[in-house]
């Protein structure tokens, strides 16, 4: 592309003025296409086409001509992928593009779909040809969810950037903000400083309230990004004081609220950072860069209650004995070929959930161990003994409890659909077999299904069967709001995964309260974990999407050293430290609960403060 640049300039008196005026002049870049030369070549070679083709081309240009932004021309392309048409999302996207020139703070309350609104802005910009380089920065736990939504709802393929050298040739990029903001104090540079060399057409930052402190590397990293459009998403633009709001807006439009001294004297009572002096004027200034809607003013947005139900499973003596033996094996006799103890933390992370899931998955684990030569013979011998015990178990109390529960649900709400979740494919097959034997008609949903198969199974569950048994893999993004009962046969120790399970049902369009049933084996650590995650976190009246924010605020959503989430690691360490002493484990869980309760309280206070300023 041959480029010819024209920039307007003024007559200046001295060199400095010249430089100044040049730097701040309107930039006009005019180019002619190299393709022109190919046409001239055709002329030279006397290659001619019918003139009518050119006339048609002129008409096609006229028909395809885009007018100024009055409507979202990309909406028909994505409409089929969106479950609901919520007018406030389109209106928001239009306002951001048309009135705010693509630089805005989107501060809608949680549950209104800020991700969808941001996706609409993005898609529109791409369809209109405004955006080629886009960057989305999200909390670590939301990267894959964003990627998934952009693909399924907006047909946009975003590439995750995790290494420093991946910024070259970056197009549509997404990254965890916690990862890329790392600063190397030795070189005095950001590890991902290549991101600052890219000129981004648009940048979207999710949960942007974390950019509240301008002295943090997080804030500085974002501030150094070169960008044409910037979208900050958060329902709580400030958490403790209004200086945080000032810092957030400084990223968007430097000086919009004056200097920090001016802001203090114009908008804070005697410099008190929590008390706005002139809220009306502050709101007016905010409205120039911010969009804020409440759930109660948005059409078609209603969320139902979550009703938690813990079902205690009282194991028989034999079942408990078998379970205890596996735990002992892991703690005391888990040795490699040379007799060296295997890392208990890693073992606990991968094996314990299987053991607590079902006798079938326990048997699967033990059989794999016995047939694997990497273990010490003493370990294998013990495993063989335990395997016999498992195989000779006559009853499965947990499964019987499940059957009773399904009957109970049917008695309460005849024909009501039930979604059963398990983490493990072996357990899923075991549940399916047993329920089929008892004449239940079920649908199975697991990883590895094609898109067509997935659609078919969902249709089957919606139209024909009462029960769907599912693993987490492959069920991300499913809309099952026609079902209002979920049974967690086993529970992931990561509350985000539990939220995602419940989130399949707890969506806009759900018409009934949602019953969240959880099977917990009495007298095991499962009982305490289920109580914490279900009763103290997932079913306490938070709106879908709020728990991830709380965990993000507390720094518990990122991945820990073991590859699991930091929260999950906390629980697992508590278990390992307790050496299977339930009393000690309960005390440790109590500490985690206190921490979480404080995080939730802080968040509620933040919401209240935000609402007091922005909504009243």
């Amino acid at each position: 592309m041959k480029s010819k640049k024209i920039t307007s300039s003024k007559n200046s008196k001295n060199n400095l003025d010249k430089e100044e005026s040049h730097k701040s002049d309107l930039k006009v870049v005019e180019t002619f296409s190299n393709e022109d030369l190919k046409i001239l070549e055709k002329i030279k070679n006397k290659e001619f086409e019918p003139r009518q083709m050119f006339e048609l081309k002129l008409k096609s240009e006229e028909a395809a001509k885009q007018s100024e932004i009055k409507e979202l021309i990309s909406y028909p392309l994505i409409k089929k992928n969106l479950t609901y048409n919520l007018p406030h999302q389109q209106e928001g996207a239009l306002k951001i593009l048309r009135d705010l020139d693509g630089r805005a703070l989107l501060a809608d309350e949680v549950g209104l779909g800020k991700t969808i609104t941001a996706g609409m802005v993005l898609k529109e910009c791409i369809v209109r040809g405004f955006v080629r380089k886009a960057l989305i920065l999200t909390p670590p736990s939301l990267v894959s969810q964003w990627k998934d939504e952009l693909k399924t709802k907006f047909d946009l393929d975003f590439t995750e950037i995790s290494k420093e050298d991946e910024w070259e040739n970056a197009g549509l990029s997404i990254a965890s903000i916690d990862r890329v903001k790392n600063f190397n104090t030795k070189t005095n540079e950001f590890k991902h400083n290549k991101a600052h060399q890219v000129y981004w057409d648009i940048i979207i930052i999710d949960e942007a309230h974390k950019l509240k402190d301008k002295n943090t590397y997080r804030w500085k990293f974002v501030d150094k990004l070169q960008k044409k459009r910037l979208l900050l998403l958060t329902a709580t633009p400030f958490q403790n004081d209004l200086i945080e709001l000032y810092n957030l807006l400084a990223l968007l439009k430097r000086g919009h609220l004056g200097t920090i001294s001016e802001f203090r004297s114009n908008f804070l009572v005697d410099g008190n950072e929590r008390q706005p002096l002139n809220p009306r004027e502050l709101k007016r200034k905010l409205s120039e860069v911010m969009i804020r809607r409440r759930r109660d003013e948005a059409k078609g947005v209603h969320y139902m209650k979550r009703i938690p139900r813990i079902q205690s499973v009282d194991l028989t003596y034999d079942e408990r004995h078998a379970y205890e033996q596996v735990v002992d094996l892991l703690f005391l006799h888990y040795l490699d070929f040379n007799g060296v103890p295997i890392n208990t933390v890693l073992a606990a992370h991968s094996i314990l959930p299987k053991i607590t899931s079902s006798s079938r998955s326990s048997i699967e684990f033990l059989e794999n161990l016995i047939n694997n030569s990497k273990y010490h013979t003493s370990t294998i011998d013990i495993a063989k003994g335990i395997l016999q015990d498992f195989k000779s178990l006559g009853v499965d109390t947990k499964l019987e409890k499940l059957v009773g529960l399904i009957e109970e649900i049917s008695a309460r709400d005849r024909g009501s659909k039930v979604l059963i979740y398990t983490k493990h494919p072996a357990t899923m097959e075991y549940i399916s077999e047993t329920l089929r034997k008892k004449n239940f008609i079920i649908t199975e949903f697991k990883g590895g299904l094609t898109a067509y198969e997935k659609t078919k199974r969902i249709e089957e569950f919606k139209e024909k069967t009462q029960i769907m048994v599912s693993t987490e893999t492959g069920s991300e993004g499913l809309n099952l709001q026609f079902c209002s009962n979920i049974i967690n046969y086993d529970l992931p120790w990561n509350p985000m995964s539990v939220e995602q399970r419940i989130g399949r049902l707890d969506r806009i369009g759900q018409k009934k309260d949602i019953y969240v049933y959880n099977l917990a084996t009495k007298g095991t650590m499962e009982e305490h974990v289920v109580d914490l995650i279900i009763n103290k976190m997932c079913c306490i009246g938070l709106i879908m999407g709020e728990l991830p924010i709380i965990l993000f605020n507390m720094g518990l959503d990122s991945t820990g050293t073991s590859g699991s989430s930091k929260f999950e690691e906390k629980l697992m360490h508590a278990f390992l430290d307790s050496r299977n002493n339930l009393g000690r484990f309960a005390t440790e869980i109590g500490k985690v609960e206190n921490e979480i309760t404080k995080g939730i309280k802080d968040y509620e206070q933040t919401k209240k403060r935000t609402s007091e300023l922005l909504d009243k």
Partner: protein
Amino acid sequence: MKETNMSKKFLLEFFKDCKIEDENEVLTISSIPVDFEDFVGKKGPYKFVFDVKTHERVRDSEPIMQGSYFLLSIRDYLENKGQTSLLELKIDPKKIKLDKKLKLLNTGSNLLYEFSFMSNYQYLNNKKQSINKILIKDGKIIDIDISKIKTQRGDQKDVIINNSTEQYELAKNKLEETIKKEIKPIKENLKIKLNKELLRVKDHYSKRIREKDEELENCANKIKMLESKRKHTSYERDRNILARLIRESIERLDMLKKKGYRERLKIEEDFQIKDEVEKHALSIKNNLMNVTIYYYKN
């Protein structure tokens, strides 16, 4: 409504060799050339609808509105087509003699070059397009409405072409002049917006520098005041306190000076200015769409 009619008319013309059904506000096109289907990535039949309600009603329909995806695809499909044409002007020699403007044709070469350029302007979240046709004869731009003259498909044996690049350069220069006029209102509008933003940025940083200067001055004055107090106090305890305060103030003053806040704020200001300039930049992309050579026989 006008837009809908135009789009529909265009689709009818574009798909004129295909099978067309126009019923219940749905235009169904089938027997579509394979190369077009491959280009668009969708097999026919296509069901075109012209409003959102019909789109909701008709499954697998393609919504057509100005700038919609399908129209953009057709435009892209035609991009490399119809780039060159040769037309013979069917013109009465008597008319040339009599008409003031047409007299131009009677001199020099019997060839005319018509260059059609598409210019795309992009700024903020706006896009505009314009098409300019420039007619050249014997190295000069001429102003004749050639569309009023009857034409027929030309025969390449009738023409000798040897200086098309020079004609193209002339046309480019003329286009630049035309564009300058066209973009004047856009530039003015952008300049107003940009200046507003630059004023905000510059004002912000000049205030911040002033505030820092004042802080520095206040600190220096405070030191002077404390030193004067220390000079005049006779109590040992007060002298010690004042000495500590002076020390602290000097440290603060040194820190303010050391940090080089003017330079730091200048760098920050330049970054913000650059950001705004880039945001308000006007990009013009010119593409030659077609060159038509007209000729006439004397």
